[in-house]
């Protein structure tokens, strides 16, 4: 895709990290080199927390802008478009900054064959707890702020009523149900 270097932050002690744990690890890894801009996704698929990027910015003491659909950089300033209810916020921030990306920001390129071949030669360094100098009590399950007590399937929605017959009759019946039964109209 175009990355020049990669670093893997991995250690058994990191297992079970919550968003804050992940942000602490990323902050420790980020501090090992200078940076102008850190890009994260909007949220992890699965947990859907939408926290890590913004936590990371605050831990590093730099600006953070979340759910971004447009970026312009001029000198040491970054201007971002951010989705809000009923519009878009234009946020101006000083670099360095952390930005979390939302769909619409760009079109991801396809990796080229040349890129794939070149990627094989690139070094991927692994950073462990000792390399990062993090307190292992503050990350992993030891550092998590909440304990999982239950994981269950969502309660099934009560079986719905699928209408049939002529469309005109279905529409009439639907309006009656929405008004009289569901009281939603």
């Amino acid at each position, binding site marked *: 895709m175009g990355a020049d270097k990669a670093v893997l932050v991995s250690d058994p002690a990191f297992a079970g990290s*919550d968003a*804050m744990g992940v942000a602490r690890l990323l902050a420790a890894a980020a501090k090992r080199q200078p940076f102008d801009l850190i890009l994260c996704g909007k949220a992890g*698929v*699965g*947990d*859907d*927390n*939408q*926290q890590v990027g*913004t*936590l990371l*910015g*605050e*831990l590093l003491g730099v*600006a*953070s802008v*979340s*759910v971004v659909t447009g970026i312009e950089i001029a000198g040491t300033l970054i201007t971002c*478009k*951010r*989705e*809000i*209810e*009923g*519009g*878009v*916020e*234009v*946020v*101006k*921030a*000083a670099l360095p*900054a952390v930005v979390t990306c939302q*769909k*619409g920001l760009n079109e991801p390129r396809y990796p080229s064959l040349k890129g794939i071949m070149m990627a094989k030669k690139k070094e991927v360094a692994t950073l462990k707890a000792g390399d990062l100098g993090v307190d292992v009590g503050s990350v992993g399950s030891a550092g998590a*702020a*909440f*304990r*999982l*007590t*239950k*994981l*269950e*399937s*969502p309660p099934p*929605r*009560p079986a*719905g*009523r*699928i*209408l*049939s017959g002529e*469309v005109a009759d*279905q*529409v009439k019946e*639907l*309006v009656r149900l*929405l008004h009289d039964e*569901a009281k*939603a109209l």
Partner: protein
Amino acid sequence: MNVLVFAEQRGGKLKKASLEAVSVGRELADVTGGSVAAVLVGQGIASLAEPLGKTGADKVYIGEDPLFASYSNDAYGLAVSKAAQIWGAEALLFPGTAMGKDLAPKVCARLGAGLLSDVTAFKLEGGTLQLTRPIYSGKAFATLSPVPGKPFALTLRPNVFPIGDKARTPEVVPLEHGVTQGDIKAVVESIIAAEGGTLDVAEADIIVSGGRGIKGPENFPLLEAFAKELSAAVGASRAAVDAGWIDHAHQVGQTGKVVSPTLYFACGISGAIQHLAGMSSSKVIVAINKDPEAPIFKVATYGVVGDLFEVIPMLTQAVKELKSRQ
């Protein structure tokens, strides 16, 4: 448990989700034994203390300053953190809005508090608070309890919790926030309102959404006319957005917005799991689809099997007649 609620306002108007959060705060404080404070940050906001009291706030901190005229997660984050320290907050609540979700991590990083996103239910069991949230695109519900002895924060999914009526006259105090211009690294410069000031799906009580079955951008006015009759917002599935038929701001689902309206119309939407993730907590779901086997019918409260180009105009007319009788 002493609870602090961040009460979001924009342009001097309180968000409904803020009142929902204060109501949850009241319940939490009542079941655990404690008080509720709300914190307002902005300019020209003093009159908003009263509705917060009506919903159950014992105390309202007013963070009023020209520095807060435009939203900055740095400035607002510092102000809310300061309020949490002054109040001795053990739990912090944020509405799960664009602003609340952006602000909560800033405050939690500063306070060292844990944060749970998108909470949809809570209860006290044997003295322990149990908090429920959907994960894996709504395919599972996780229940978690906070590790004792640490402050924690929650963002609450909007439109899920009822607005309470445990009214009181709140004590209103100015917030000694200590924020200076030098603290601000990022700030909102302007807001581009959606075209025609249309209602946002994230805040609407009724949503009319269209999917692949709409067939093209030229047919969205059909849904818009129906939505107008209902004072509803227009939503869309990923298929319709990716095809370029409607702006991404309208997308409901995993890569769009998560909504919980009272009434959701899915028109020509098959019901992929990514779409269900964004709307399955709607109270009443109406599916309109030609294909009786479409998965959307599995979550529908009511289903109409038919061509939406035939159904929607009839439905628009029927709703118009119903409204004129009311």
